[in-house]
């Protein structure tokens, strides 16, 4: 048994052995809780990363589309009028909240759109309406991407922390307690054998001394 595997035992007694067994039971339970949590968080992390990659790709194509639409619109509408059109057509608000994933707080962002005046669209060319729509889509995706990437950072940090603890339990603490329990059991067996031998020896000595 290596030195690292053994816990320093103050009293090699039966009570200590019972305590160690209890400790082992609790350590295993804790290991299960942490491992379940790690599985849930990892799955969440993988799902978020997949979504973020897809969304990032779609954002890139939407940025190109948005720029293309804006340039087309600027042939017919001046930039100031275009921005005013956006302001009068609708109000966009961002709702910021939080949600909890297995003990980790991650942001939740939602874009809300409120149409103010639909009739204003009849005064502008079709390309301007397309620009408004593509810009709004892009903004919604960017907000979602921000939410995802922030969640990935937070959950990733928690995964690292939990993983370190699971590994510490799995490779250090539990084997160490198991080794100590084994060591104590062997020690008690040894002590029992010694006692037996001693008793036999005493019996022999007494038998030799006693007159026949």
């Amino acid at each position, binding site marked *: 048994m290596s030195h690292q595997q053994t*816990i*320093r*035992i*103050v009293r090699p007694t039966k009570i200590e052995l019972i*305590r160690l067994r209890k*400790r082992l039971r*609790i*350590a295993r*339970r*804790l290991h*299960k*809780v*942490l*491992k*379940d*949590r790690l*599985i*849930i968080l990892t*799955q*969440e992390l993988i*799902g978020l990363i997949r979504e973020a990659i897809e969304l990032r790709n779609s954002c890139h194509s939407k940025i190109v589309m948005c720029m293309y639409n804006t340039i087309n619109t600027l042939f017919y509408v001046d930039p100031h009028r275009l921005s005013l059109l956006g302001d009068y057509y609708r109000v966009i608000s961002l*709702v910021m*909240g*939080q*949600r*909890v*994933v*297995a*003990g980790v*707080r991650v942001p*939740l962002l*939602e874009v809300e759109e409120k149409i103010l005046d639909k009739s204003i669209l009849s005064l502008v060319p079709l390309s301007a309406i397309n620009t408004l729509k593509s810009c709004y889509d892009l903004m919604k995706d960017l907000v979602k991407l921000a939410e995802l990437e922030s969640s990935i950072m937070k959950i990733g940090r928690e995964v690292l922390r939990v993983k370190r603890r699971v590994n510490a339990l799995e490779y250090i*603490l539990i084997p160490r307690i198991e080794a100590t329990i084994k060591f104590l059991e062997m020690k008690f067996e040894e002590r029992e054998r010694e006692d037996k031998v001693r008793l036999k020896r005493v019996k022999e000595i007494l038998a030799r001394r006693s007159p026949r």
Partner: protein
Amino acid sequence: MSYESSRDIIEVYLRNELRVVNKSLPVRRKTLSELINEKYPYVVTRDGGIHMFRRSELALAYKVLGDELSKKLLLPIILEVRTEFKETVMVVNDEVAVILISRLLGLRDASPPLYIYPPQLALIRNKIGSLIQYAFIVT
């Protein structure tokens, strides 16, 4: 730290870990029909924070369940993660929640308790990620 003082450190750590993972459970759950009418749908959690629901996911649940059952569905849906199982399995005990999840997963004849495995969890998370919460139960 001496051995004597660290004797019950694992027990304390287990208790703290359970407190950390279960602190985000709601103080009071709300029904789906209640939440769908709120401007900002959320519940207050045990640590004083909030857990917000995504509107699109609430609308999906409402669409799947209909008006009658949405008055009975309490949100967030609690997925119990129990240590007694060897593998990671989640259990849903709420009857209406079982109906919602089984319809989303395409399961037939599901009845409580419903056992959910990690691959199914990924599907649920995609559809109603903000409507579920995990409760870690040590038995």
